[in-house]
């Protein structure tokens, strides 16, 4: 009997918002999916949908910042009800704290885990190095680009030793070069730390380049309708026939729901 518990399991998750005159608007409809562990290293998963499908709401509910109307979330088999740093959310806009330096941002996370001062310094240096910010410890987020701010938010998230990091469309406003560097960083991180990354994106290429798994989500209401395993995808040869077939498969799945994606 296979008793390996999924890292994340979402069951029958539904979210309604109150509309005008007491009406109810269904934002997320019966969301069901699971992410299985990948041995002793992490994995990268994307939730791919057109804009306005409710990805941000879904991520906020997964991290327990917002409550769902119904449904359950299980983290390593246990019901995840209160935010406790095990599922961390990185919002779309830069969320690194501008009044704190890089080091202080990371230490904010570490202090929440109640590290002693000696550990704190050592751990902070380790994490800063992990996200490629060595030498920038005393810099403030506003001194550099959005990519820099994302690295700080990522480092602060890693400081609380999460099981899952949810990233909400954070690469949208970045230039091509920075995006490429960050994709590389995430791919390195998944092999270095046992963390599961979940990206919300509207960009099909981003989802393909980053992920091991893609969950396809339609809108009105938001619903995950298909899962694509792309571990066999050849990221070194994007134009290969096999890759084109996979991309076409994803596009067709959305076309079936009369929805289009960002293909840039």
């Amino acid at each position, binding site marked *: 009997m296979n008793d390996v518990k999924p890292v994340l399991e979402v069951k029958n998750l539904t979210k309604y918002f109150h509309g005008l005159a007491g009406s109810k608007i269904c934002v997320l409809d019966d969301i069901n999916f699971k992410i299985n562990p990948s041995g002793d290293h992490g994995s990268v998963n994307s939730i791919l949908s057109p804009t306005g499908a409710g990805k941000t709401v879904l991520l*906020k509910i997964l*991290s*327990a*910042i917002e409550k769902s109307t119904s449904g359950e979330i299980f983290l390593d088999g246990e019901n995840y009800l209160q*935010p*406790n*740093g095990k*599922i*961390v*959310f*990185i*919002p*779309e*806009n*830069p*969320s690194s*704290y*501008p*009044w*704190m330096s890089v080091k202080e941002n990371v230490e*904010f*996370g570490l202090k*929440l885990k109640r590290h002693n001062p000696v550990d704190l310094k050592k751990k902070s240096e380790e994490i800063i190095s992990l996200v490629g910010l060595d030498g920038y410890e005393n810099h*403030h*987020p*506003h001194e550099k680009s959005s990519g820099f701010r994302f690295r700080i*938010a990522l480092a*602060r*998230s890693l400081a*609380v030793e999460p099981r899952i990091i*949810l990233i909400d469309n954070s690469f949208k406003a970045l230039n091509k070069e920075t995006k490429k560097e960050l994709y590389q960083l995430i791919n390195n991180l998944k092999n270095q730390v046992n963390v599961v990354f979940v990206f919300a994106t509207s960009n099909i290429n981003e989802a393909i380049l980053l992920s091991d798994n893609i969950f396809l989500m339609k809108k009105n209401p938001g619903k995950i309708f298909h899962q694509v395993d792309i571990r066999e995808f050849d990221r070194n040869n994007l134009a290969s026939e096999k890759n084109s077939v996979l991309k076409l498969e994803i596009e067709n799945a959305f076309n079936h729901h009369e929805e289009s994606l960002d293909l840039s």
Partner: protein
Amino acid sequence: MNKKKYLKNSQKALAWILFIWIILFEFILPSNNFLPKPSIVLLSFGALVNEYHLFRNISITISEIYLSLAASYFLAKIFYRYTGGFDLFLSASESIYRFFKFLPIIIPGIFLILWIPNSNYTGFIFAFIISTVAVSSKINEESLKVKREYIDSAISLGAGKNIIAKDIIWNSIQPHLFSYIFELHYFIWLSLLLFEFINGGFGIGAIYKFALQYKDISSLFSISVITGLIIYLGFIVIKYLRNKFFHWSNI
């Protein structure tokens, strides 16, 4: 026009006004009740020091203003940081602040003079009440505007209400609060001068009252220049503190 050029031009304009005043009122026009002779203004500084107790009164007004501002800021900081927002106090402050928007602030000041007559502390109490209500109200207003992503990420990291209030909201609102104190500082100066003028006991406002009673136009002129310079210096200090501690802010 850039800032440097603007400053240079205003210094030039001020120098010209001074020059014209010296030439016109010292050498050309006869003595008048409009503007005193520059030589008489210079002599009036001596009278201000000896007869109007300039230094004592300046120290009183300055300490009332800056101590009350500092006290209300640190009081709010302590309450906010260690009570996880202190919502009730802040909401109450905002209500009081809104009420006094439609009532000249000097009216409660007049009542204060009647309730606590002949006290050395009424000026401080008056300035402290204004600054505490205004600062708390501003904290309440700004804390509702803190970027949602700062709070959301802190919640997901596992931070509790007190940590979010202390480390996220409080720090996030500081640049806005200091910009507000920059404006509030001027308002407190005006209110306190008026208060001291009516009270007539101590402070720079009292100097205005006595100089007016004696129709001492040259002392009035000198104390006005001194008041302007002190307020200007206050602005520079607050601006310096803001730029030093909140360089990360883009407001």
